[in-house]
C-alpha cells in the first residue's frame, strides 16, 4: 500500500493580529486564534488529490507538539486524510528536531512521498523539508507549483517556483516535496466529513519512542516589533527632493 506522509503545523491564524509579550520573550499567544499553516493545508490538499487520482493509496497526516495539535490533525482528517499521527511533546520544536522526528517516522511508515508546506507562517524558516530530505538522503523538490506522479516509473515531475520563473524537475521516489501557494486551492472541510473525522484514529507517539533528542539548541534572546513606519511627506519639486536626500536622509 503506497502512502503519502503529510506534515501539518498548528500556527497562529494567518488573519490574526500579533502582539509581542511585554517581556519581549516572544509573541503573545493567549486568546489568539490558531489554525493549520496555510502551506500545510495546500500539502494536505495535494495529498488528497494524489489519492483521488489513485497515485497513492493512503494519506497519513502527522503533527508534532502539545495536546492542542490534535485539533489540527482533526482538520486534516476532516479534509479527507485516512489516519493521523500525533508526536506528543511539550518541548518547543526547532526545524532540525522536526526534521529528525519526521525522518524517524518516514523510516517507520515507508511512504512514497513526504509532503510539507514550504514554510510555516510563524517561523518562516523554510528549512524543515530540505533538512528532512537531507537526513533521509531522498531527493527534494521545494516550492512546488505542480506535481505529477508517475507510479510506473517510480518518479515525480515537479514544477518549482524559482526567482527566475518556473523550473521543472524529475526526481526518483521516495522524495520530499514542499508546497508553494499556487499548487492548489485547499478544499473546505464539509460537516459530514468533520463528523466522520471525530471517529478516525490519531496514533500517539513520543520523541523518545522514535529515538530522537529534541532538546533546544537555539535560545531566543529577544523579540521586537518592527520599527514604526513614519509618515510620508509630499514634496513640491525635484529640487526639494534632492535637498532632502542630501541634508536629511544623507544618502547623496
Amino acid at each position, binding site marked *: 500500500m503506497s502512502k503519502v506522509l503529510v506534515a501539518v503545523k498548528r500556527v497562529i*491564524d494567518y*488573519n*490574526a*493580529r500579533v*502582539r509581542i509579550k511585554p517581556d519581549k520573550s516572544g509573541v503573545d499567544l493567549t*486568546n*489568539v*486564534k490558531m489554525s493549520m499553516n496555510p502551506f500545510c493545508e495546500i500539502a494536505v490538499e495535494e495529498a488528497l488529490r494524489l489519492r483521488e487520482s489513485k497515485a497513492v493509496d493512503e494519506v497519513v497526516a502527522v503533527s508534532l507538539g502539545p495536546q492542542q495539535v490534535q485539533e489540527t490533525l482533526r482538520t486534516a482528517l476532516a479534509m479527507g486524510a485516512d489516519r493521523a499521527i500525533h508526536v506528543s511533546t511539550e518541548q518547543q520544536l526547532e526545524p532540525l528536531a522536526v526534521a529528525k522526528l519526521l525522518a524517524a517516522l518516514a523510516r517507520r511508515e515507508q511512504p512514497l512521498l513526504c509532503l510539507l508546506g514550504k514554510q510555516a507562517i510563524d517561523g518562516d524558516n523554510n528549512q524543515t523539508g530540505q533538512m528532512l530530505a537531507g537526513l533521509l538522503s531522498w531527493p527534494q523538490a521545494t516550492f512546488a507549483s505542480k506535481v505529477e506522479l508517475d507510479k510506473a516509473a517510480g518518479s515525480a515531475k515537479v514544477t518549482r517556483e524559482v526567482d527566475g520563473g518556473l523550473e521543472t524537475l524529475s526526481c526518483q521516489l521516495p522524495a520530499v516535496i514542499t508546497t508553494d501557494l499556487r499548487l492548489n*486551492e*485547499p*478544499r*473546505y472541510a*464539509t*460537516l*459530514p466529513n*468533520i*463528523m466522520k473525522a471525530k471517529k478516525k484514529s490519531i496514533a500517539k507517539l513520543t520523541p523518545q519512542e522514535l529515538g530522537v533528542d529534541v532538546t533546544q539548541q537555539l535560545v531566543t534572546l529577544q523579540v521586537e516589533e518592527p520599527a514604526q513606519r513614519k509618515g510620508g511627506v509630499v514634496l513640491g519639486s525635484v529640487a526639494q527632493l534632492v535637498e532632502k536626500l542630501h541634508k536629511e536622509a544623507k544618502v547623496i
Partner: protein
Amino acid sequence: MFGLGLLARAARQHQLQCTVSRLFSSCRPLAAATGAVQQAQPREQLQYDLCIVGAGPAGLSAAIRFKQLCKEDNRDLSVCVIEKGSEVGAHILSGNVFEPRALDELFPKWSEQQGEGQAFADLPLRQKATADRFYMLTQGSSIRLPNPPQMKNRGKNYIISLSELTRWLAKHAEEQGVDVFPGFAGKEVLYDWHNAVVGVATGDMGIAKDGSRKPSYTPGVDLMARLTLFGEGARGSLSQSLMQHYGLREAAGASPQTYALGLKEVWEVPEEQHQPGLVVHTVGYPLDNSTYGGGWIYHMEGRRVSLGLVVGLDYANPSLSPYQEFQAFKRHPLVAATIVGGTCLQYGARSLNEGGLQSIPKLAFPGGALIGCSAGFLNTPKIKGTHTAMKSGIVAGEEAFRALGLADDAGKKGPITLRNYADRMEVSWVYQELERARNIRPGFSKWGLWGGMANAALSTYLLRGREPWTLKHRHADHEATKLARDWPPKDYPKPDGVTTFDIPTSLYRSGTNHNHDQPPHLVLADPGLPEVVNHPQYGGPEAKYCPAGVYEYAADEASGRPRLVINAQNCLHCKACSIKDPRQNITWTVPEGGGGPNYTIM
C-alpha cells in the same frame, strides 16, 4: 419493467427532495454567468434531535443544559450547534459587566471549583466589579451623578470578555458531547409541507462573485432536527425570516423591536491609568438631548480597559455617524485620561435590542423557538442581556429535553413544538426584570434626555415598575430618520491616529475578513433605490451609520452621479443597515461561513 423501476426510483427521489421546501438552494439548477445551467445535486442530510443556530451564550447554555439532563436521565439525544464565525467567540461583542445569575443555575457549584485542576479553573470570570460611577458629560467636563440602582455592580458582577466566556462554554459543551461546528452559516430555514421547521440548511461554499461555482465548490448540508433553536443574537437573519414567515410579532401583539448600535474597543493602558474593577457609565456628550445612548468604561484585569458608546438607532439626523460619535467620546477628557499612552487592541460593533418586554415576539413555533437576543431579552436600563439570554437558553434546553423525551416515549417522530417554553419564560425572573424596566427606554424616545431621565427616576425610585401603564415604541427605528434637508449635516473632525482613528485602521483591529470572491451578502430589494431615495433624500445615511465602511457613494464614471458601492468584505455583521435603512431596502443575508470579524477579547 426496467423503465418503470427507474421511474419509480426517480419519483421517490423527487419526493424526498420535495419533503423539504426551500427558497435558495443548490437543489435548484443554477444559471451561471455563462448561461449554462448547472445540474442540481441533492444535498446531504444530517440528522440531529436538537439543532441550535448560533454558538453564543444562549445557544451554548441551551446545549449544555440539554446534555446535563440527558446524562441525568441516561438518554442519548444528539445536539449540534452551528456558528457562522470562524471560531466560537469570533462574532461575540459585549460590554460586559456580567451578572452570574444564570451561570449559577447552569453550574450551581462553579465558584467552589475554581482551584487548580478543577472543572472551573479556567472559567474567565477573573475581575469582580469594585466600584460604580455614573457621569453626565458635557463638551469639556463631567458631572458625577448618583448611581442608578440598575447600575449597581460592585461586589456582585464580573467584568469579562464575553468572547472568552463563550469560548469556555463551547469547550465545556464539546466535552459534554455537543457537536459544535464553527465556520458553518445557517443559510435557510427548512420547512415541511405542514409548515413546521424541520431544520436548517447550511450555505454552499465556493461560489464566485458572479454566482458560478469555483473549483472548490462544496454544497452545504441540510441539518435536519426535530427541534431547532435560533440564538443568532439581535436581528439574526434566520430569526427575521421566521418572524415574517410565522407572523411572530403580530401574534404576540408586540411593538416593533428597537435597537442601538454599540461600538467598542479594548485598550491596554499604562498602569497608573488602570483601576481594575472600576465600572463607569456616562450619558450626555457627545450625543445630543434627542439621541438616546451612553458610554461605558470598564476596567478589566491585566491593564485592559473595555470602552464604548451605545447609540440608539432611532436617531433622527440622517448624517449622524455612530462611529464618529464614538471617536468624539474618546476625545472627552474623562475618557482620554484613561486611554492616552495606551494601545488599542481590538475594535468592533454590534447592534443590540432595546425594545424590552414590549417587543418580545411569539417565542415558539412548530419545530423551533427563538432564544437569547434573537427574541430580545436584554434589560435596557441595566444594559445587560447575557444573563437573560443564558436563562432563556437554559429554559429552552430543559423544555427541549422534556418534549423530545415525551415524544420518544410515545414513539412519535416529526417536529416538536415547545408548548411550555414561553409560559415558563413569562413566570421567570427574566420577565420580572423586564417588567420592572419596561417604561424606562421608551421615555427617552418620547421626551428626550431630560424627560427620559425624569421618567426613569419616577419609574425606578417611586413606582418601582409597578405603574399600570406601559409605554409603547411608536415606530421602528428606520421610520425615525428624517430628511436630510431638515437637518444640518454633521461635521466630524479628522482622527488624530493616537486615540481616535479612521475606519480602515479600526477595521484592521477587528480582524474582519471575508473571501472576496463570493456574491455580496448585502442584498438590495431595489438596486436603484439608493440613487433615487437614500442619497438625494437622506444624504446616503448608510455611508454614515455603517461602522465598517461597507457603504460608499462614489461618482459614477459615466454619468457623474453618485452611485452606491458596497464593500461587503468589510462587514462586521452588526446588522445596523438591516435596521436603519429608511425604506428597509437592505437585507442582511449570511455570507460564506467563517467570514466576518475575528473578535478574541471583546
